């Protein structure tokens, strides 16, 4: 698929908002950056004809997770204002550069002149929403079901940790 404007714009938006998440100082701004990132991702999914995922991204990520982050930001003392150090930033740049270097090494084949390497391209549209549902109940049914105990564990953990903040209940075990 040749480069198309909507995809390029969405990619640029996603990248910029990701930068925002990294670079902005105030936690509230960071959360807004994440919101923007999530929305631009959803748009990108639409351009990749993944409508279901676009909706899910908007609802779950933008609607639930980012809001959750915002709530916690307000719960933390001082609003979670952070004092960044130059050492930390230097290390971060090094880590980011190392990761980018390796990923660049993996992608180098696509850009090397004369290289025949390319991602395979499928003509036509991607899988429809109906098709997406199928693997959830066939090939991926085990992982799908496994999310249930996973979420259970997450809920139990969150509740049990919340109880930590209350005073321990009186009365011992026998």
């Amino acid at each position, binding site marked *: 698929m040749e480069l198309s404007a909507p995809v390029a714009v969405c990619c640029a938006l996603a990248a910029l908002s990701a930068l925002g998440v990294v670079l902005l100082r105030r936690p509230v701004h960071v959360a807004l950056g994440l919101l923007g990132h999530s929305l631009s991702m959803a748009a990108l999914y639409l351009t990749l004809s993944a409508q279901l995922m676009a909706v899910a991204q908007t609802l779950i990520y933008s609607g639930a997770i980012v809001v959750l982050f915002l709530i916690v930001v307000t719960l933390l003392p001082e609003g979670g204002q952070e004092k960044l150090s130059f050492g930390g930033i230097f290390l971060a740049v090094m880590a980011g550069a190392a990761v980018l270097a390796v990923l660049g090494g993996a992608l180098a084949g696509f850009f090397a002149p004369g290289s025949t390497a390319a991602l395979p391209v499928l003509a036509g549209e991607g899988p429809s929403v109906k098709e997406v549902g199928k693997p959830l109940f066939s090939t991926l*049914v085990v992982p799908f079901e496994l999310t249930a105990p996973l979420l259970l564990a997450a809920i139990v953990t969150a509740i*049990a940790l919340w109880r930590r903040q209350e005073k321990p209940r009186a009365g011992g075990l026998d």
Partner: protein
Amino acid sequence: MNGMPDLSALSWVHRAEILLVVGALVLLAFAPRLDRSRLAPMLIGLVTAGGAIACGLQTTGAERMGLVVGSVAVVFGLLLLSSAELFDRHQTPEAAALLLIGGIGGVVLVTGQSLLELALGTEMISLVGAALVALGQGQRPLEAGFKYFVLTAVTFATLLFGMGLIFVATGSLAVPALGAVAEGVRPLATVGVALFAIGLAFKLAVFPVHFGALDAYTAGPSSFVGSIMVLSKLGAAAALVKLASGAGEALQFPLMIVGLVTIVFAVLASFAQDDLRRLMAYSAVAHAGFLALGVGSGVAGGTAVAFYVVGYGAAALLAFACLAGTGTGPLPLSSLRPGGSLQLGPARAAGLIVALLSLAGVPPLPGFWTKLAVLKACFGAWGTLATTTAALGGVLGIIYYLRPLPDLLAQAKETKGQGTVDAVVAVGAAVAVVVVLSFLPNLAWDLAR
């Protein structure tokens, strides 16, 4: 698996998983009633885990090994439930339920075939591990649980990104056979496999990604640390074996290097430790190095790794069963730091000595046989230099394993708080397993094949 699965055709693995979920649900549903009883949560959990072991005995190969070893690890955690150092002693039903879910995670990692299943298993163990550590009493477990979780979240994201790269390259969620991937996108798949392996390596606790596990094993409640540790090592090692068998040398070489670095690092760094708990945590890292080395040693390494997990698991469960109920603070050794006061009593001290000797690889304890098996596999794959390094690191480790010995031998005859009956059962059972595996290591070898 075409269309809706037929319930009667469920495999034993899935039956065991469902059983474990049901057990967890029962525990949680009746938690308000169960939390005053010492025995009930444990018994419900034990019945469930016992059922999972029974299911495991119906199967063969890796499934059998995963179900049996994973469930046994859960059983030990359950047996030590009443001596667990929980922040809120009424949370035993929750802890038991989390243990059972952790068991599912371990089983999924061993038996799962697609990358997505492996990812889910990893995440399940991460959540359970962080939760069980963070529920311990005092600030230390909370700090350790938080660090463990942040680090695991990052490595898990790395794992997911690796899965994404593999999927882009191959269009399939199956464990990729790199040799069969189209040449143009093979680097993409290779890096994907490596990043996926990083997420699993965190569970294994090898060198650059060991920090979280090190803290969690140091400060977590000892009752649960043994189970979490064995479950994560079992699952991660099995998953890595699957990944490496498809990836070939592209993954085996880095794993070999990482394994050697981990062994040397853990052995050297542990010389500076004077806290028994920290020593045990470093020991877990050193053994992860051997596991990584085994995984990096090809097909022969796969069997050796499974064997290693069995032998290591027995000794680790014994060690932490002996430490159960000693709080979550440091346990300084008086021979190394003045003012240390280790109060274990002679029986648990003796059990701990057996465990330490096995972990150190002293013949004829199982730790020795498993180490030999991995070294043999490593020699077959990588030759003399790697084997010599690993062997040297392995045997030098004996120095730090014997460091607590003077303190343990000095345990007075009469100490109060010898532990509850269930804890005694746990220690006894673990000692029995270690002793049997010492003289009949071929039993573990058969289980591992």
